[in-house]
């Protein structure tokens, strides 16, 4: 008897592929326009963006840990946490990441790092205190799934051209103010629209569309990590109760604490700001209800009782 596999959400896979395809298409069009109009000025900009992307990619673990104020803890400082992570890594066939704790009362967790070998998972002290062991385990499994799915790599690649577009928008604005873009481009279009205006318009458009698409991909990655957590722990209901606890705690806690960690939203298991419920299109995490519904579906497939 072969067990069927769970959470094989064909719709999710299809949506992920479709969004990636749209993003790729957008970037190709953007690149074509740039090459068409900006054959001179493009090289230095590209170098800058590639440099930035690599910097971000290679330092993602340290940057994110520092931005969140996370402190790496060794085994003797948090033996239980290390035990949990070790076993989950074994189940997920991952090397053990660095383990860090953020000293804040907001219950949350995040993972970062360019590859499973250079990864780190962090939990807040609030998460450790307020959730029970199974729930913490499911949250860690969610974060490890981000590592296994190489989400930092995916998001770096996905946002590469968005960074380029953002940079060009800025350059375009300067060019508009000070006249001219790069060197001798202006001479060719004395009668037409100036190059910098076209580049500016296309860059803004690319940036806006890619922003939405990247956020969409980010939401899909969350569903995938939720599924990964269910697979690793075999118990999606633990993650469901953890998510509910975390989100209710987060809404309860006053704003001042939240802003301290607001820069880290894309990495957290639940974003710290929950104000823009309506604007799902612009959110990097799916709304809680949808995540719970997806987990419930996996739980049903597993034949697991759902509270």
């Amino acid at each position, binding site marked *: 008897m072969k067990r069927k596999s769970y959470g094989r959400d064909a719709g999710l896979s299809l949506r992920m592929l479709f969004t990636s395809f749209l993003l790729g298409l957008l970037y190709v069009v953007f690149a074509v326009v740039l090459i068409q109009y900006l054959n001179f000025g493009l090289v230095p900009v590209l170098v800058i963006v590639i440099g930035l992307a690599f910097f971000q990619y290679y330092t993602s673990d340290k940057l994110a840990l520092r931005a969140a104020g996370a402190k790496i803890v060794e085994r003797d400082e948090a033996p239980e946490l290390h*035990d949990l992570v070790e076993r989950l890594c*074994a189940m997920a066939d991952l090397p053990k990441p660095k383990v860090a704790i953020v000293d804040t009362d907001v219950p949350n967790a995040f993972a970062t790092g360019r590859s499973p070998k250079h990864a780190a998972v962090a939990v807040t002290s609030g998460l450790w205190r307020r959730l029970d062991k199974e729930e913490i385990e499911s949250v860690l499994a969610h974060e490890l799934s981000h590592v296994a799915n190489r989400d930092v790599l995916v998001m770096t690649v996905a946002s590469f051209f968005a960074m380029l577009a953002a940079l060009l928008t800025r350059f375009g604005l300067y060019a508009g103010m000070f006249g001219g873009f790069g060197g001798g481009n202006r001479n060719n279009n004395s009668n037409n629209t100036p190059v910098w205006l076209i580049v500016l318009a296309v860059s803004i458009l690319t940036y806006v569309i890619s922003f939405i698409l990247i956020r969409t991909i980010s939401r899909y990655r969350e569903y995938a990590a939720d599924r990964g957590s269910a697979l690793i722990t*075999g118990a999606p209901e633990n993650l469901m109760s953890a998510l509910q606890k975390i989100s209710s705690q987060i809404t309860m806690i006053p704003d001042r604490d939240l802003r301290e960690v607001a820069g880290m939203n894309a990495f957290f298991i639940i974003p710290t700001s929950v104000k823009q419920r309506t604007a799902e299109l612009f959110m990097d995490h799916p709304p809680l209800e949808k995540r719970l519904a997806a987990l419930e579906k996996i739980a049903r497939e597993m034949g*697991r009782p759902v509270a």
Partner: protein
Amino acid sequence: MGLADVLLGRKKLKSPAQERLFALSTARVTLDTELGLKTSGAGGIVFKPLSAGEFVRAENDLQQVLDAVAGESGSKLERKSDDFGYEWIVVRDADLEDQVTTVHAVAQGLEEAGFGEQLLAAAFKFEPKFGDGKDVYWVYGYKQGAFWPFVPTGEKDRDNAEELELKAKLENELPIEPDLSRWFGLFNAPL
């Protein structure tokens, strides 16, 4: 892992590597003569229990497997669970070879029942033949298909120096997990 896993996220855990477990039987002589370690009479298999509904169904199959294995091998089988929410099937048998065979049979039974991906590890407990040294566990990771030593010295501590020495001594006979960060411990193993 392939491109599909990166693009779409993993949909499945790695299947267990079962075969290399038998290397421990072969290493028995070295363990005995060179390291002065003998089996304490207990080995076990640890796995993550899955969904209630399916597990009840598989439970019957599993019980049948356990009964059949127990009848054939003469080993005693016990079911336990630990603080981490993992299930254990403990095999008690004075002979290491029989222990290994029985653990393998149980693991296969679990895999046939559809729980192969939930297998975490097998563990075998050894004790010094003479004097009162530390107990040594040889842990077999099903995902990696490799062994590593585990020498607990208390509730939370382990003797890394001893473990590395064991590794050096048995490297030629046992497939040892090269990545030290994957040598997770099984503290309070119910063996």
